């Protein structure tokens, strides 16, 4: 991923016209995940001495490789993409200004930050980074004075790249853009005097600077230069790291001032070009986070516009095309090179404007309008024209491009139909009707599958091939109709480029089944046992066919012997032996009856089908069992890449708060993992589709504690004993450990996030003994009905303590110890958590941000000022308080009376 940005480096040769290197190798290709873009600026001499042995030669090879295909195979995003993205960057970022601003403003921030920084150790082996950083600093120092030459600072390099992508048209653009941008930069230059070398810049370029910090600086800094710089830096982070903060980025884009937006946009646009799923994610989130605005402002807001732009699918061509066609690239770049030289020398960043211009900046109402209104329209037109030409020029790509014109459509339609189903279900009065309708609607949906659609909650690339419609269930909800569907998918390399699987008719399943003849396939097993004598259940019944019984029967029925065997043809091997001996087979009626009741008892406790609670049965079934069953009945089941996913479709519910909770949980999980604290939590994925719809990744193999108690009629401890064995067994101990670790994790979560509404219906228990809290509808500043219940720090009932072995026992102490460790670890990384929450507060009307003290309160709960000893006391107090708290019990009682939850 990191290569993406690095690839700019080949393009900025303008600094020294080095004819020796027709395609300048990238010195910046360090394998480190966050290579500083500025490294790439290092002039070619420095790269001739490969400072990092690992990176140097290797990447040379890549870069220089005469067969570009090879190079591209390795480094995913190709030159063109990057250069183009960078072109956009230049629009907003005036490199010199940015650097200077950084130096000045961030110095202060850095000093504040250092406190935190010192805490975390810098790993030694990264000496390379240090060297790199130093080099960079020097370069930037040199760079600044002769910034006119093309800005050796990152953005300058970016410009070069931009030209590369934009191609021949660049000079034109530059001419037109030049005056305004020059004036702008002049203005800024007046404001910020170049000052001494920036420590802050060093921080930014250091290895420690991660996405979390970037996002938080982006939010906190009021300095456009800093923001612009960080916007730039986003390109250097791995995609998945940035993706995690996408809600934050987009919320800032929607609700913060123009400069932040300008800083973020190029990155977003760049990523949208690369990926369909990113595009859609952005569109959905933009829609959701714009919804809190007043309707009148919303319509013209930046977020809405960007959303429209993405959904118009105009952000498609360049990226996707470039990625797929390396040869064109290599042809294209050399010819363009002289041009960036000229361009960079002339006006630096301006050239990139055209690239973004074509994509629609936020300055005008719509991209199409702008082409007529603005002075640079010609350039824009020609740019897009040139890209069009490119598109048609190479034959093999024409098709793929046509396909791309509808690249967002299938998925949007898919989501739309799922939401439509939810809306229609809500109009039906009974659960039964809802279920029927759901099944029939899904069966219609099946007709349109397989398609280039996917479930965004899945961790791997795939195509949806079938929805086993009869397995879908309506979940319990009063006036809305959330439902759970299972989705069969085929895993693939890349859902955008891999071909969509071909449709297999439903009935095909039978042929596949008989062909495979898998022994583990239940159906075939059943078929084999169809003959009486091989039914395993009867194997132990030999005594039933004993001679005594036979004699008895013979007395009763004298004619048995003579006509015992009419249908010889159907006899199985076993019965033939009995045939030969001319002795009929006898069975005891009592055995049949006994087997019946035994089998009924042994059938895995299927809940009785309850039309009022259809989901209970579906959720009860063990996941693997369900997967096996559905796979068996699916025409696609025999394919090796077949996977089963499930998703809860919520229509009419705002999942933004759930998403926020997910992010915090994810962050804390990460922190605990990093700090090696064995706390266990299970963040489940949330997909926000709008402010009132979305999807949730269901937690599998878990039932709510309410259900556990209701169906087992046991205390939690007894249930553990029943499920896992007696207290000395390995199984029980491991389940108990899981329970304690998850309890500690969620206790902290509940405390930190002030998760309320903690009744047993909202706490799941999985097969391994973990508890999992679900439903984060009441967190931070909101609590249900404002009844003021649940004043304890978290929910810790005596039943929970019992499972831990009782107070003051080892496991209970372990629990408290885990909490302390967890809290200390969390405290150390408080900023990461705070940043996530604080940014989302921007412009939000979510109930969890109600009031003014949300963030302050959250910060206070980390108790930065306490010593570890004091923290330990605090944990003790909280545990005590929660155990004593009658409010928990009171709340459970309240829930029981109002909702029937035990």
């Amino acid at each position: 991923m990191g290569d993406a940005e690095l690839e700019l480096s080949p393009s900025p040769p303008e600094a020294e016209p080095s004819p020796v290197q027709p395609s300048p190798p990238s010195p910046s290709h360090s394998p480190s995940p966050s290579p500083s873009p500025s490294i790439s600026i290092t002039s070619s001499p420095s790269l001739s001495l490969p400072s990092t042995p690992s990176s140097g030669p290797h990447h040379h090879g890549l870069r220089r490789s005469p067969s570009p295909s090879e190079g591209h195979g390795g480094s995913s995003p190709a030159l063109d993409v990057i250069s183009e993205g960078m072109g956009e960057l230049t629009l907003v970022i005036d490199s010199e200004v940015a650097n200077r601003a950084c130096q000045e403003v961030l110095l202060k921030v850095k000093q504040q930050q250092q406190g935190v920084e010192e805490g975390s150790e810098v790993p030694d082996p990264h000496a390379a980074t240090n060297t790199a950083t130093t080099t960079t600093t020097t370069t930037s120092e040199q760079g600044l004075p002769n910034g006119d030459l093309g800005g050796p600072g990152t953005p300058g390099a970016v410009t070069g790249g931009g030209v590369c992508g934009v191609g021949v048209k660049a000079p034109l653009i530059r001419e037109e853009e030049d005056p305004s941008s020059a004036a702008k930069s002049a203005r800024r230059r007046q404001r910020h005097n170049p000052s001494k070398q920036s420590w802050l810049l060093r921080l930014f370029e250091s290895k420690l600077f991660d996405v979390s910090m970037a996002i938080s600086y982006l939010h906190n800094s009021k300095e456009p230069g800093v923001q612009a710089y960080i916007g730039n830096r986003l390109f250097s982070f791995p995609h998945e790291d940035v993706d995690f903060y996408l809600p934050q980025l987009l919320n800032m884009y929607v609700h913060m001032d123009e400069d932040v937006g300008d800083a973020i946009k190029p990155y977003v646009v760049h990523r949208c070009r690369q990926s369909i799923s990113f595009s859609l994610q952005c569109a959905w989130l933009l829609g959701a986070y714009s919804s809190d605005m007043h309707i009148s402002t919303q319509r013209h807001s930046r977020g809405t516009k960007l959303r429209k732009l993405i959904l118009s699918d105009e952000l498609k061509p360049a990226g996707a095309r470039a990625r797929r066609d390396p040869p064109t690239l290599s042809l294209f770049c050399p010819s363009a090179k002289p041009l960036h030289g000229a361009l960079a020398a002339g006006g630096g960043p301006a050239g990139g404007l055209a690239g973004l211009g074509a994509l629609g900046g936020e300055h005008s109402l719509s991209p199409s309008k702008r082409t007529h209104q603005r002075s640079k329209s010609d350039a824009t037109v020609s740019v897009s024209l040139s890209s069009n030409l490119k598109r048609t020029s190479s034959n093999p790509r024409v098709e793929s491009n046509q396909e791309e014109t509808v690249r967002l459509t299938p998925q949007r339609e898919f989501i739309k139909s799922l939401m439509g189903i939810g809306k229609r279900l809500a109009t039906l009065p009974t659960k039964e009707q809802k279920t029927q309708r759901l099944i029939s609607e899904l069966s219609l949906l099946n007709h349109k599958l397989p398609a280039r659609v996917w479930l965004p909650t899945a961790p791997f690339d795939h195509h949806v091939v079938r929805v086993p419609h009869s397995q879908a269930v309506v979940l319990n909800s009063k006036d809305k109709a959330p439902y759970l569907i299972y989705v069969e998918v085929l895993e693939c390399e890349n859902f955008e480029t891999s071909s969509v699987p071909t449709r297999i008719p439903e009935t095909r399943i039978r042929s596949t089944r008989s062909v495979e003849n898998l022994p583990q396939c239940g159906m075939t097993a059943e078929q084999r046992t169809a003959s009486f004598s091989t039914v395993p259940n009867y194997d132990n019944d030999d005594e039933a066919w004993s001679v005594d019984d036979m004699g008895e029967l013979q007395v009763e029925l004298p004619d048995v012997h003579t006509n015992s065997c009419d249908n010889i043809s159907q006899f199985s091997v076993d019965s033939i032996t009995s045939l030969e001996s001319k002795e009929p087979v006898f069975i005891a009626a009592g055995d049949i009856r006994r087997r019946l009741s035994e089998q009924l008892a042994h059938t895995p406790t299927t809940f009785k089908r309850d039309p009022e609670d259809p989901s209970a049965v579906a959720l009860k079934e063990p996941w693997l069992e369900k997967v096996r069953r559905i796979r068996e009945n699916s025409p696609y089941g025999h394919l090796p890449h077949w996977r089963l996913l499930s998703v809860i479709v919520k229509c009419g519910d705002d999942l933004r708060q759930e998403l926020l909770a997910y992010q915090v949980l994810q962050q804390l999980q990460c922190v605990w993992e990093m700090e090696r604290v064995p706390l266990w939590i299970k963040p489940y994925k949330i997909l926000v589709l709008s402010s009132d719809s979305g999807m949730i990744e269901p937690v599998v193999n878990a039932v709510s504690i309410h259900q556990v108690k209701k169906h087992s009629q046991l205390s939690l401890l007894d249930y553990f004993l029943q499920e896992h064995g007696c207290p000395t067994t390995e199984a029980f101990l491991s389940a108990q450990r899981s329970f304690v670790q998850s309890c500690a994790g969620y206790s902290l979560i509940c405390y930190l996030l002030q998760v309320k509404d903690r009744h047993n219906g909202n706490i799941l228990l999985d097969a391994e003994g973990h508890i999992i809290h679900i439903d984060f509808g009441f967190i931070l500043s909101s609590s249900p009905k404002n009844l003021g219940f649940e004043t304890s720090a978290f929910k810790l009932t005596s039943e929970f303590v019992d499972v831990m072995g009782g107070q003051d026992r080892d496991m209970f102490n372990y629990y408290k110890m885990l909490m302390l460790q967890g809290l200390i670890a969390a405290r150390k990384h408080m900023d990461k958590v705070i940043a996530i929450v604080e940014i989302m507060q921007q412009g939000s009307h979510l109930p969890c941000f109600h009031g003014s003290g949300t963030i302050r309160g959250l910060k206070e709960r980390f108790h930065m000022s306490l010593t570890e000893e004091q923290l330990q006391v605090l944990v003790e107090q909280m545990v005590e308080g929660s155990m004593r708290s009658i409010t928990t019990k009171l709340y459970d009682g309240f829930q029981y009376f109002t909702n029937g939850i035990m």
Partner: protein
Amino acid sequence: MSQVEKKVGLLRRSSSSKKPLKEKVVLMYDEIFKEDPSKHNPRFWDELFLMKVNLEYLESKLESVDGEEVQRIQDNINSLFHHCVQALGEEHQIKVVNALQTLCALFRGVHQKNKSSSGFDIINMLMGFDKAELRMKDLMESLDSLLCGDGSESLKSLCLKLLLCLVTVTDNISQNTILEYVMINSIFEAILQILSDVSSRGQHGYDAVVLLALLVNYRKYESVNPYIVKLSIVDDEPTLDGMGMVVHHALTEYSRQYKAKEEENQGGFFSTLTTMAILLALYEAVHLNRNFITVLAQSHPEIDMGVTSISPSPTTPTTPLGTSPPSLDAMNNQEQLTLDPNLQTSNLLITFLKYASIVMQDTKEEHRLNSARLCLIILTCIAEDQYADSFLHDDNMNFRVNLHKMPMRHRKKGVDKNIPCRPLVCAVLDLMVEFIVTHMMKEFPMDLYMRCVQIIHKLICYQKKCRIRLHYTWRELWSALINLLKFLLSNETTLLAKHNIFHLALLVVNLFNMFITYGDTFLPTSNSYDELYYEVVRMHQVFDNLYCMVLRVSTNTGQWKEPASKVTHSLVNVRAIINHFNPKIESYAAVNHISQLSEEQVLEVVRTNYDTLTLKLQDGLDQFERYSEQPREAAFFKELVRSISLNVRRNVSLSTMSQDLLLKEFSTIS
């Protein structure tokens, strides 16, 4: 000739002039029957197809040609046929319309004339032997392109009518030699295309499906029929769905009409003739194409015909030749699921079951008996299909199916409001039970009973094999079966005169054996096994009597000896149960001084005495003969196709008068 004159006169009756003037077209027809019409008028053929066709006249003219004349005018008729085919390629749609209708008249007239003669004579007279292949190829190609083109819907409709007319000109479709050319020049793809497209399906679906059903039955058993082959491999879902929709719609329409009549208290049953062809199509699809099975389960909202307004589609003011049920175009709307909360979800299978429940009520008349038989055959095919079984038994797919129940003296009507939502197989079982209890009459429909019991057997075999424990009130089935045995016993003599009642009795007893020996694999509760014993013991007299009867028959010599002795052996376990529990129950009553044991008390006795009862394991209980159409059903289908042909032909010919409408449409176009 006088007959012809009369017909002309009849046609003219409405006009005021008393001396009827002959139409120009009639004069031109006359000319054809005299000499080469183009001799005097080179533009004769051009002009002919601009004239409004007088089908009746042309037909009767052809009919009335006598033997010697045939030779003389054959060339002219060949020429007419040739020009008709040529005219199909004309741009001028009026000409195409007229050519199509003229062809219709030609086929019919020539066949009327030559009823007894061989197919070759007919072909010779129409096209001439040497040209026949070429002419028919051209004709079929033209029809194909008209059907698949973007042309007028009326034109397409007319094409289908012509084909229907051609397919049904003979009573026995297999004797229609011209169809050999339709086999070679397949229009199968055109039919499929009509079915796959929503709008064309709405307008022509019925005709297309009927045509397909008939074509599939052409020399089905004697030769390789390409339509059979092609139909069996279709896997395009929209097309299959389309076919399902047409069937669904026709069956729903029938049910609606029935209901309407019933509500008007008109009582009685009306003809199933119109749906017979559709039913045949459904059978062929289910029987030949296993992909079609999925269509059966394809859910869609129930179309309540009473609610759906019948809006005539603009392209067809009314269906020109009128074989279609009136409101087929309502089908267009059902593709989208509407938002009516009162709408129950339905599927083709449910529709079919409801239809079957109506049709099977009364089997006295032959065509209804045939419909019921066909329904049961279709259900047999379904019950044998594993995929169908899997969705029939799918616990997640529950439906309420309102089956029609015959009003009977001893039972209340209209309690069906509270039907629970259950897997579909329950509805099938209900239907079977319903049939069993309502048809024990003098005119005993033996064949239907056999099929009925076999269907139940197949379903239970599936449940046993897959260990599916269906929550069904098996008791109703048991008591229905026992009553059936009782009926067979009490009507032994009358029934034996016509039927092998032992075969049926054997099947019934073996159903009980399935429950007795394999009950542990598919019964829903342990209690249900007790109830089975209770029921057997309670009705022991029936089994005792049956045993006596079969024992008696099997000891005599005669044709029933062997079948009767089979029943004797099958009764082993039932008798063991009765002999085991009866004394126990009696002694229980004696010990406790109870004259009449309650059900609970009997069940208690049953429960406590299982262990001393030994049963014999009977083999092959879960084996069944798979359905095969040939040779057993061949005669039935031959007859069925014949009656459908007659019906279709009658409907096509009746409607030729409505050509005015058609012409009106085209005269406004051109």
